[in-house]
């Protein structure tokens, strides 16, 4: 029972990280852009915050605000360089290779500048307060992470549901051709999704480096988790993507705890494959009808 509780808590902490990573990825995924640089963008968000705080003396809570305009510019650049020129191919896979390359470039740039050493904001913070609930141990930052990730998720839900661009984004996600026929500028919507996604990636990089140790190569693992949660959640319904992300975190921990740590990733992929076979559209088809 002791172990079970701790595993669930660990799962929730991991889940909040995966949720943060998945949201931005799923958003661009829903408008047919497979942004494989997403993992590297998350990593660079953590790295930039580290640079701001460590070398420029920026107060910790200001650094995510600085990341927003950077996310805007980087999102715009990614669209212009890696997405727009290949949109004409109109294939689902347009942009996979270009964003993959971009991710490798970002990762190697950090490797060149910083090397493979750790960069962690948590070293620069005072030691966080530790809680014991029944038998589970966790700290204040981890709780904050869970709360903030849910808050960001709900903010995004509202934005997609109620704002003008959000409504158009759902229309494009539903049927691109029909939306174009109705006079929606799909390029503008893709750009909107990409800017939002990139900003989210950078900010989540900051958030997760509050608790996690990072180096230049953490992006790939996060991308895999984000992709898995997006596919299981069905991409078109962000609620379910977030739920899938938390489920993934908990599942991983339970497999590691009760089966074997060697089986963790394999177990996650088995779940992914099962979903792809049994329910090709993921959990999200139901949600799509309800949402639009």
């Amino acid at each position, binding site marked *: 029972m002791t172990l079970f509780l701790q595993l669930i808590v660990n799962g929730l902490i991991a889940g909040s990280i995966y949720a943060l990573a998945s949201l931005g990825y799923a958003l661009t995924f829903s408008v047919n852009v497979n942004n494989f640089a997403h993992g590297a963008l998350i990593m660079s968000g953590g790295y930039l915050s580290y640079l701001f705080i460590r070398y420029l003396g920026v107060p910790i809570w200001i650094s995510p605000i600085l990341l927003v305009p950077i996310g805007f510019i980087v999102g715009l650049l990614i669209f212009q360089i890696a997405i727009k020129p290949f949109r004409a191919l109109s294939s689902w896979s347009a942009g996979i290779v270009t964003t993959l390359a971009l991710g490798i470039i970002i990762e190697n740039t950090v490797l060149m500048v910083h090397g*493979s*050493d750790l960069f962690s904001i948590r070293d620069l913070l005072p030691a966080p307060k530790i809680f014991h609930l029944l038998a589970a*141990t966790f700290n204040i930052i981890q709780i904050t992470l869970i709360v903030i990730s849910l808050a960001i998720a709900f903010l995004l839900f509202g934005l997609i549901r109620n704002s003008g661009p959000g409504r158009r984004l759902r229309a494009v996600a539903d049927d691109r051709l029909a939306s174009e026929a109705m006079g929606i500028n799909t390029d503008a919507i893709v750009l909107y999704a990409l800017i939002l996604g990139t900003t989210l990636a950078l900010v989540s990089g900051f958030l997760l480096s509050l608790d996690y*140790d990072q*180096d230049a190569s953490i992006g790939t693992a996060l991308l895999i988790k984000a992709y898995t949660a997006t596919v299981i959640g069905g991409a078109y319904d962000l609620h379910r993507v977030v739920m899938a992300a938390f489920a993934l975190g908990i599942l991983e921990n339970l497999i*590691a705890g009760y089966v*074997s740590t060697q089986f963790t990733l394999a177990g996650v992929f088995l779940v992914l494959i099962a979903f792809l076979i049994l329910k090709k559209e993921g959990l999200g088809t139901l949600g799509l009808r309800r949402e639009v």
Partner: protein
Amino acid sequence: MKNPVLFLAILSILGNGCNRRTPEFKVGADLPLTGTVAYYGTSAMKGIDLALDEIREENGFKNAKVQAIFEDNQGEATGAITAMNKLVDIDDVPAVIGGGSSIESMAAAPIATKSKTVLLSPISSATSLSGISPYFFRTCPSDLVQARNLAEWILQSGHDTVALIYVNSTWGTAFNGNFVNYFSSNGGRILKMQSSDPGELNFRTQLSIVKSLKPSALIAIVYAKEGGVLVRQARDLGLNIPIYGADPWSQKDFRIGAGKFADGIMYTTPVQYDGPSFDAFKAKFLKKYNEEPDVYASNGYDCMQLLADAYENGARTGPQFQSFLNHVKDFMGTTGVTTFDSNGDVVGKKFGRFLIKNGEPIQVKSR
């Protein structure tokens, strides 16, 4: 002449034929200079470079062109293969220093066998490398000795029920196997063995499981950076039992990752040879790099000096270098005396036990 390129090519060949070529002593290095175990390669490279400086001054090499060609394998099997193939096929070297982590040597050894090129590792210590190729040698002792030393130490300290976390790599699994064999056949009990992937920086799940089992000590056979993170996460979770590690933890990457939690951590690592040859080396190293040499640097230096010795004794081809290493006896280097057994393993080098106190490792006398 219709074709100017062809003309130039012929000219250059003729020109070459007329000149007496300067003798060339060229070796390769297949090491991780970037990536998660970059500290292996960069340390060894410093040792090799220092050795090269000295070799160039020696009489036998006055007129020779001496060089080492460094290839970065990023600590990966595929990288080690690409680097080895390049060194063998394009640079045509008779001997290669490498690899760093054991997986690199494992991957490069078959190419060494096929191309009859010596592969001399300053670092790879996995037991499974013993006798892997007639062309493979190493100046660092095999982990069989280290794993036993570590197990003995833990048992002597009164910890007979332990938990184990090891990295899923050639080095980690082999080390783990040796440790478990020795530990459990000498009265120790292992409550749980868990693996982690190389480069993984999250150990919370494994540590939660360890905590729930209440062992009296934790053994973590993981690399330096990962080890530091592991130690910190263990203390964060309130897991306050003694933690033991292995030689990568002698690196400063470990102490950086663990921060203030490094104090009290224990590990085994090859001891620096305590003699005049090491002192001289240390002084020169300090002068050139303004830092203390670690054990990978002194092994890199010894590897280079061994190959230079072979060259001075007339070795020019791979098999000649191999034969020299097979017969070398009590080569006096900065890591002590080197003699290879029939498996290419070095004989008689020792491991020491270390404890980190106030951020600095101090050697613990074995009982």
